[in-house]
């Protein structure tokens, strides 16, 4: 579904260029759930923006569904690292925004919006403005917005980073359920190994800046997975050990 071929990204800043990503060759299969793990600043968000067609790569080529990516596609949805809510829109109106943009019939999606808000624990907050919400609540609104329509590819950038452990577990459980019911291609950036192990079919580990693909780990554990299950926890420990181990030749 997604193919990255020799992708590199260099940003030109005031204080000289920054190499964010270098020589990424990577594929994500149809309906595969891939988690991306890597140290802060290694280029995870940049990678998502490249796949989303929001940024042309400095080098290399990117394909989604067999077509080269030149601009954003409607069947690819992005949930950004920051909530990016429109400050003048109520919670509900923010969630409904993609529906408006796609010109879909609002009425038929309004119930879904309410369901999603209920699911993430924001019932009763539909009419509030973003600045009246806590950080985690804003992130949950952003999550609902990215789930309101059913894209073929979902790119999610640390979707649960501002949430408490409990809500996090609940929501990652929900995400797993949705994925089992209606499988999609998901690229999911996270800092939580536990989350990666519960959700992902495969975990891609990036090296620190410039981000290269250090390793990918297949997780062939039966679903639904829950944290605490011995095999899940075991996979988590292995992944953690891998991450803590010194880098080989790729280390900066």
């Amino acid at each position, binding site marked *: 579904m997604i193919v990255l071929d020799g992708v590199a990204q260099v940003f030109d800043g005031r204080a000289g260029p920054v190499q964010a990503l270098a020589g990424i060759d990577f594929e994500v299969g149809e309906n595969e759930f891939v988690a991306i793990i890597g140290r802060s600043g290694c280029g995870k968000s940049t990678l998502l*923006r490249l796949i*989303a067609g*929001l940024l042309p790569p400095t080098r290399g080529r990117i394909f989604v569904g067999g077509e080269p990516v030149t*601009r*954003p*596609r*409607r069947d*690819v*949805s*992005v949930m*950004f690292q*920051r909530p*990016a809510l*429109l*400050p*003048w829109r109520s919670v509900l109106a923010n969630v409904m*925004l*993609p529906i*408006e*943009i*796609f010109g879909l019939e609002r009425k038929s999606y309004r119930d879904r919006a309410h369901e999603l808000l209920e699911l993430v624990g924001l019932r009763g907050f539909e009419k509030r*403005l*973003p*600045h009246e919400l806590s950080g985690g609540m804003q992130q949950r609104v952003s999550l609902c917005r990215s789930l309101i329509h059913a894209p073929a590819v979902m790119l999610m950038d640390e979707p649960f980073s501002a949430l408490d452990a409990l809500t996090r577990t609940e929501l990652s459980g929900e995400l797993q359920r949705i994925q089992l019911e209606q499988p999609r291609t998901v690229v999911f950036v996270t800092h939580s190994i536990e989350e990666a192990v519960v959700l992902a079919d495969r975990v891609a580990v990036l090296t620190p800046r410039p981000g290269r693909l250090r390793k990918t780990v297949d997780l062939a554990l039966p679903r639904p997975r829950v944290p605490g299950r011995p095999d899940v926890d075991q996979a988590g420990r292995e992944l953690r050990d891998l991450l803590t181990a010194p880098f080989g030749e790729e280390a900066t």
Partner: protein
Amino acid sequence: MKARGAVLPVVGVLALIGLWWLATIVFSIEKFLVPSPADVVASFLELPGYLLGQSLVTLAETIEGFSLSIVVGIPLAMLIVRSPLLERTFYPILLAMNAVPKIAVAPILVVWFGFGQGPKVVLVVLVCVFPVVISTASGMKSTPHELVELLRSWDASRRQEFFKLRFRHALPQIFVGLKVAISLAVIGAVIAEFVGADAGLGFVIVQSGASADTSLAFAAMTLLAIMSIALFYGLAYLERKLVPWAEEHR
């Protein structure tokens, strides 16, 4: 902002009037130069109906021209924001048009458009389209990159990017432009009336000027000030209705 909110502006205006009055007395300024508020009120009371009628003429020109500026200026600003090419090409033209003193142009407008409302409205547009364009364009350009990227990620059309995002984001700044423009609009209408009109407060000012009836001229200018202030607060009210989300929480 209810009843209490109206007290302070009134205090401010009263203070201004008091100062003016005091100045005319203390510096014993001649009436033909600067009449006292009492003279001005007396002048108004001589011809209240006539003066209000003339005010309505000026008001109509102002509102027509101002509305037209919005209708012309906001799409122009969008074009400018959309294409840096258009921006670089259009801006200097706009600037050149804006740089010409309108009083110097007014006679040409009269020759072209005759003595009716036409040239007045055109002049109002010429005077106030620039602040509308520049503030709208600046407001739309300052839309946070992350929100623009959000809409782009959905492959939103340019139109959607403008109307669902940039325009809404720019509203507070657009209102700053409109507030600057509305005063200019009033002045533009008056200037136009200086040149070839037989009605309107500008005409009253010219006519009173011709006979050094400074009190009458000041009465007309006071009416202009009231009109201008009322229009400004009308805009401010509209702004509060349209941009209710607290200003600082952007």
